[in-house]
Structure formats: structure tokens, C-alpha cells
């Protein structure tokens, strides 16, 4: 289970490919997190402080509050889908970085 040759972690970490991979990954994670938290928190905030708007019926008797709540499910699935697609590309780049160490 231990590596055959001792790994120089600092050297790997300093590789430009690794730095660039991590930078792009972090940018995506941070922006996706800001987006989903804002979208999600908008729900209880609007519900709590703008109840009349949220009670407006838009689909038959179904109101904005419920439609917005359902859209959260869709939002979560879409972000997961985008992340997984990006992550499978990142996997390949990560494998390049550690090539020869497996």
C-alpha cells in the first residue's frame, strides 16, 4: 500500500500543471458555491420577507413559492451534472501530474 519510491510532495505541488489545475478547480468550486448558496438562500428570504409575492399563483393554483422550491431540485442536479463533466477532465490532468508515481 505504500509507494515504491518516496514521493516529493512539494515538487509535485509546484508543478505548473498542478497549480493551473488547482486554480481552475478552485475557481469553479468557489463560483458554483456562491451561486447555489445565493439561489438557495433566496428561497427562505423571499418567503420570509416578501410573502405576498411568493403567494402569487402562476400555474393554476400553484404559487411562485412552490415553483421556486421545485426549481431548487433542478438547480442542484444541473450543478452536479456540470461538476461531474468538468471533474472527469480534471481526473485526466491529475493523472498526468502524478504520472510515474503510481
Amino acid at each position, binding site marked *: *500500500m505504500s*509507494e515504491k519510491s518516496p*514521493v516529493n*510532495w*512539494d515538487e*509535485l*505541488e*509546484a508543478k505548473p500543471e*498542478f497549480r493551473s*489545475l*488547482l486554480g481552475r*478547480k*478552485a475557481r469553479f*468550486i468557489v463560483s*458554483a*458555491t456562491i451561486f*447555489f*448558496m445565493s439561489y*438557495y*438562500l433566496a*428561497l*427562505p*428570504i423571499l*418567503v*420570509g*420577507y416578501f*410573502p405576498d409575492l*411568493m*403567494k402569487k399563483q402562476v400555474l*393554476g*393554483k*400553484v*404559487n411562485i*413559492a*412552490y415553483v421556486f*422550491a*421545485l426549481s*431548487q*431540485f433542478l*438547480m*442542484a*442536479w444541473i*450543478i*452536479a451534472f456540470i*461538476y*461531474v463533466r468538468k*471533474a*472527469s477532465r*480534471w*481526473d485526466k490532468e*491529475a*493523472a498526468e*501530474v*502524478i504520472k510515474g*508515481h*503510481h
Partner: protein
Amino acid sequence: MSIALTMFVGFVALTLLITFWAARKNTGASAYFAAGRSITGWQNGLAVAGDYMSAASFLGISGAICLSGYDGFMYSVGFLVAYITVLLIVAEPLRNAGKYTMADLLAYRLSPRPVRAMASLSTLTVSTFYMIAQMVGAGVIIEKLIGASFHTAVIGVGVLMLVYVVFGGMLATTWVQIIKAILLMIGAFMLSVLVLKHHGYSLGAFFDSVTAATYAGTEAPKNLLEPGLKYGPAVAGPWGSLDFISLSIALVLGTAGLPHILVRFYTVPDAKTARSSVVWAMAIIGLFYILTTFFGFGAATILQKAQILSDGKPNPNMVAPALAQHLGGELFFAFISAVAFATILAVVAGLTMSASASFAHDFYTNVIHHGKEHRPGEEVRVARITAFVVGAVSIGLAIYLGPSVNAAFLVGLAFAVAASANLPVIVLSVFWKRFNTTGAVAGLGVGLGSSIVLILLSPNGLFGKAGAVFPLENPGIISIPLGFLAAWLGTVLTARDPAAEAKFAELKVRAHTGLGAEKAVAH
């Protein structure tokens, strides 16, 4: 009555068979604590879903929606959206850098003993909160179904769960979760179809009647799709809206700090599989929570108050079984109750598993014995003994609290504690180079302490509604920022830790490439 018993016995027999099969495969700590890291993506996805869709989800949420309408549906939304945090931030680094418990990731570059001691304390606290919720749910169902007393029921569940954990370990627990998740999805789907059938298979008719529901027979018709039945200013006073936001924050950030969910990612061979298991879980869990629309709101349009009474009060945990009985007769009621029972048993087993793993691995081996096992197999033995203790304590607390605490509410509190204590330190240890041991201990301690103190001072706490010092039921909006703040302050106010910072490069490479991660054991 006999049909219900037969189903119960059938499920229990099946799970015991799995346990004995798993017991024979349990050789060594990696097999016992992490199922040999041999679980596949879809299997673990189902198991995560199984671990997650607890009595709180099924019994608690249907009760919360039936009695508080839209405000109860927020649990469903928050429980799913929370998985984005797990997917983006926690699952893969944890799998790549850890071994058996959440604390492995934290101890990676910080002083292991203080960090593990605190993380273990917080794991045990969150698990106990969560467990009480499940035990209470189990007691209610069994009491109604086979007429056993609440006490007998709770003790029965406790003993069964111990058999799974002590003999079967993580492998048996995982398969119990998988079977239960499938049964629960079938039950939820059938229940939803029956509700739609009641409304002539018309979504329009269904929503029309939800907007003029008789609120389980208690009051004049109300529009349950309108927010505010529980947290609106008319009902909850001026703090209601803020309380609703606080609950929402706790729900969305809590999952990524739940120890029994986190340990699931150690059962798969690598980070890629951990990722795909989160996606599987999100698909299953999302579908389930959308279905709560039907059996939650639907229950309010169909049931009468008299059908959900226990001890003269409407009991939210009774809504789903009562709806099944009303719509599908005794056979379906028996099936739904057996499903709920299976759900609880499985979740309780998962919780006990993660709590005892944390005590044995973090506290016993690493804190007391400085990371060395004195005799082979000692860690597993200590975990088994801990399982007994955790089981006994939860049985006692569940009996003490009694049958009518809402399971979803208790779990909401467990989420607040998990989000305040565990999440800040997990995030900072992965993303912040400067983060040090004092910061981690401060974050865990303040997050845990502040959330518990605020719960005790809340309207549900020591002094009741009238004497509450803290006006919110859910402490998340205060205690989560406090957890982050304490972790940050603890770090910047103390000396830099060159050893921890030097190991950050290694942690980054490990977390993001999987180099040197724990491998699956070959069978």
C-alpha cells in the same frame, strides 16, 4: 396484524442473513470499518441515500408538511441542495486523504491528539441527536402496528441494530442501507400514486385541494402551498422568518458535516467512485423529496385529525403510516410500516457504526494510545464495545423523551450541530494553508458548544417558550458563523505552525490527485 408481523420478521430475517454473510468476510479493520473499500458507485449511492432518508425524512417530513404545509417542505429542499456541498467540497478530498473517520482528514497535518479528541466528541454528539430521532420514530410505529409498548419497541430496535453493527460491521450496514433504500423508494412511489388516484390522477385536482386543505381536520380550510403556517409572523411572531432562514442554513450546510454520511465515502475504491456515488445519491434522494409533495401535502387533503392522534395530540410521526392505512388498507399499512421500520433500523445501524468507529479509531487508538494498536484487532474490538454503549445511551434517551417529539425537528438540530462544529474545520483544513491545531480545536469546540447552548436556551430548551433566552428554534444562523469565526480566530491569534503548513502541499496533492490514497482490499 399477522401480515404486518410477517413483513417485519421477513425483513429482519433477510438483514440477519446479510449480517452473517458479512461477518464471515470481515477480516481486519479496513473490512470492518470501510467494507474493504469495495463498494461500487451505484451501490454506495443507494447506501448514502439509505443512510440519509431516515425516519426524519419519511415520517418527519410527511408530518411536517401535513401539519405546517409549505414550511415543512423546506426540509425536502434543503436536504437535497445540501449534497452540492458534499459533492463539490468534501467527498473527494475526504476519500483521498482519510482512512476511516472524518477526523482522519483533520489530523492529516494538524496535531492528531487534540483534533481527534474534539472531532470524536462532536461525532458522538451529532450521532446521538440523530439516533434519538430515529428511535422515537421506531417506537411510534411498532407501538401502533403490533401493539408492543413504546419502551419494548425502542429496546427491540436497539438490540437488532447492535447485532448488525457488532457482527456485520460496515459491509452488513451498507447492504442493509441498500435494501432499505430500494424498499423506501417503492413505498414512497406507491403512496404517491395512491394519493394521486384519490384525486382522480389529476395534478390540477390535487393542487386545487392542497390549496384548500382542512389541515388534517383541525381548522378551517387553508392554502397549504402558502408559506408561513409555521414560521410566518402571525404564528411564530417577529422571529419566525429569521428562524426559517436559520433552519435553511443548517439544512444546507449540515449534511457535509454528518459523520455517518462522510464515512460512506471510505467504502468505495477511489475518489472518482465517491463522486459518482454522490451523483447517484442526489438522483435518488431528489426524487424521493419531490415525492414528499404527494404524501406530505396529500395527507393533509385526505386524513382527519382523529387518524393521527397519539395520547390525544396530533402526532406528526404518524402521518405517513396513517395515510397508508387510509388509502391502501391493512396490507399496505403493514408494508409502509415495515418500510419505515427498515429505514430506522438501517439508519440507526449507520449512526452507531460511525460513532463507534470514531471512538475506537480517533479516541482509543489515536488519542489514548498515540496511534498504535497494542494487539491486532484491538481497534475493531473497542468499536464493538462502543456500539453497545452508544446503543444503550440512545435507547435510554429515546425512552426518556417519549413518543411525540418530531423526528424531523430533532434531525434539524443534529444538522445545526454538524454544520457548526464539523463543516468549518473540514473546509478550512482543505483550503487554508495557515490553519492550525488551535484553530481546529477552537472551531470544533465553539461550533459544538454554541449550537448546544443555543438549543438549550431556545423555545424548545430548558426554559420553555415563555422563558426562552434565545428566540430561534434552530441555532444555525448564529452557531455556524461562530464555528467559522472561532476556527479563524484560533488560528490567527496563535503562532504559525510550520509543520502543518509544510504538509499542506502534500495534502493538496493527495486530495486532488488521489496519490497515496487508501486502496481497496482484494477479496
